[in-house]
């Protein structure tokens, strides 16, 4: 794991490569390094880190979305990068609001991310611009709504116990 | 003359009887609940849009023909094999000629490369 100073070095490297405002923040929590970046430059930073950084992270273990509902830039995409020679992990995080949920795709840099991106689009509605065929992967193609968003209802049926029988009169018919 | 054919006729009759019985009984006794989906082709549970007049590749047909050719050859060998002693050596020579003829055909087909799946 890159320790706190290693993370700062990577952040500094990215800052001077892509300009100062791309890196929004760095968090080092429970020996896991997270580099927070602007949504538009996500593709360049991940591409840079995967190929031509000083210590490249050549493998993308996972790409997943998340919805931090209460606090403001709600949706986020996480790129779990992995350097196999050094057995080193780094997470590049991108936060964005619901209405500008758009991130450039990285399938041309790392084709393995195409299923992940389709799933993140399917579950959160984050559009990956430039993805070869961005369709729903898990839900039926014509499904409306993005299930894993916090404001999406859990669905299913209300379970009938004695205390809430009142709301469902004559349920036993 | 009829005596000698009796067993064969009885066999034939029984075969037709039971075959027909099972086929017809199935139709009679089975309950019928027609529904439109039942008549559509089964394609792993997905409505199938495979064109009905689809033309398969030539290799399928070729392999089928070759199989039938050599299968009939074996069918002809059965009656001879059963009564080889009664027919005497003439039938033996006859069969060997028959087999070698077909074997030549087999070698030709094999060398021609028709057996490999294309």
């Amino acid at each position, binding site marked *: 794991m890159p320790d706190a100073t290693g993370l700062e070095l990577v952040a500094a490297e990215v800052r001077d490569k892509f300009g100062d405002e791309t890196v929004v923040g760095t968090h080092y929590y429970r020996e896991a390094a997270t580099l927070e970046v602007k949504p538009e430059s996500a593709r360049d930073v991940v591409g840079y880190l995967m190929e031509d950084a000083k210590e490249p992270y050549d493998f993308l273990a996972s790409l997943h979305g998340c919805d931090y509902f209460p606090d403001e830039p709600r949706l986020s995409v996480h790129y779990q990068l992995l350097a196999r020679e050094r057995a080193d992990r780094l997470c590049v995080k991108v936060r964005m609001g619901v209405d500008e949920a758009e991130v450039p795709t990285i399938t041309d840099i790392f084709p393995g991310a195409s299923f992940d991106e389709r799933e993140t689009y399917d579950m959160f509605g984050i559009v990956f611009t430039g993805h070869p065929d961005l369709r729903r992967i898990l*839900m*039926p193609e014509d499904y409306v709504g993005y*299930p894993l968003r916090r404001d*999406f*209802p*859990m*669905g*299913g*049926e*209300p*379970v*009938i116990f*004695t205390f809430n*029988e*009142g709301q*469902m*009169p*004559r*349920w*036993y*018919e | 003359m009829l005596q000698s054919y009796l067993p064969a006729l009885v066999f034939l009759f029984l075969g037709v009887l039971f075959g027909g019985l099972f086929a017809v009984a199935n139709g009679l*006794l*089975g*309950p*019928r*609940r027609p*529904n439109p*989906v*039942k008549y*559509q082709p*089964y394609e792993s*549970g*997905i*409505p199938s849009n495979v064109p009905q007049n689809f033309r398969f590749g030539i290799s399928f047909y070729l392999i089928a023909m070759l199989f039938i050719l050599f299968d009939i050859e074996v069918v002809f060998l059965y009656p001879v094999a059963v009564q080889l002693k009664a027919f005497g050596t003439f039938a033996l020579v006859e069969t060997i000629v028959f087999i070698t003829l077909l074997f030549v055909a087999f070698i030709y087909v094999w060398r021609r490369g028709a057996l490999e799946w294309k």
Partner: protein
Amino acid sequence: MEVIRQPLNGEGGGEDLRIRQVRARQLLRGELEGEDLERYVEERVLMTTLEQAQNWARANAVWPLGFGLACCAIEMITTLAGPRTDLSRFGAEVTRSSPRQADMLILSGRVSIKMAPIIRRLYDQMLEPKWVISMGACASTAGMFNNYALVQGADKFLPVDVYVPGCPPRPEALAYGVIKLQNKIKGQPDLGWRERYQSYGTEEQSA
């Protein structure tokens, strides 16, 4: 979300089980007469032996459709090919892959909303007479996944004959489910505990 419960259109084809039981009881008490009695007797006497013979033949050769959805499929395959229980004792060992040759559909696993139309199509394409065993909590009531992705119970779109509880049910439980299905096919279904112990009147009624 209000709960709508309407009886499924029944298995179709002749009265369903409940009505037959009620009429049998009326016959015993001698209350059945007139046209009903005629039809009842005619149906019973004429076809009794043939129907029993048919049901016996069908019950002892119930071929399941090889259809694994999720974790219960692992236990179903262990029931079919495992060392401890084997369904060939009930003639249910041959799993047919095509619905045309299968008599019974074992719904082993969770039924998602994307899979439901496909299962309904498979059920429709199966030939009569056909039965459905809903194996496991997820097939019977979507078990613990009370969420957007699962159909809350397969009986919302399929007439289910036997529900096998468990998550996943043990192989012995599924074998017992097949035995119960056989009794049902032979026309003597095991009575539920209310009938067996005559404990009517204890159904939970709202205040």
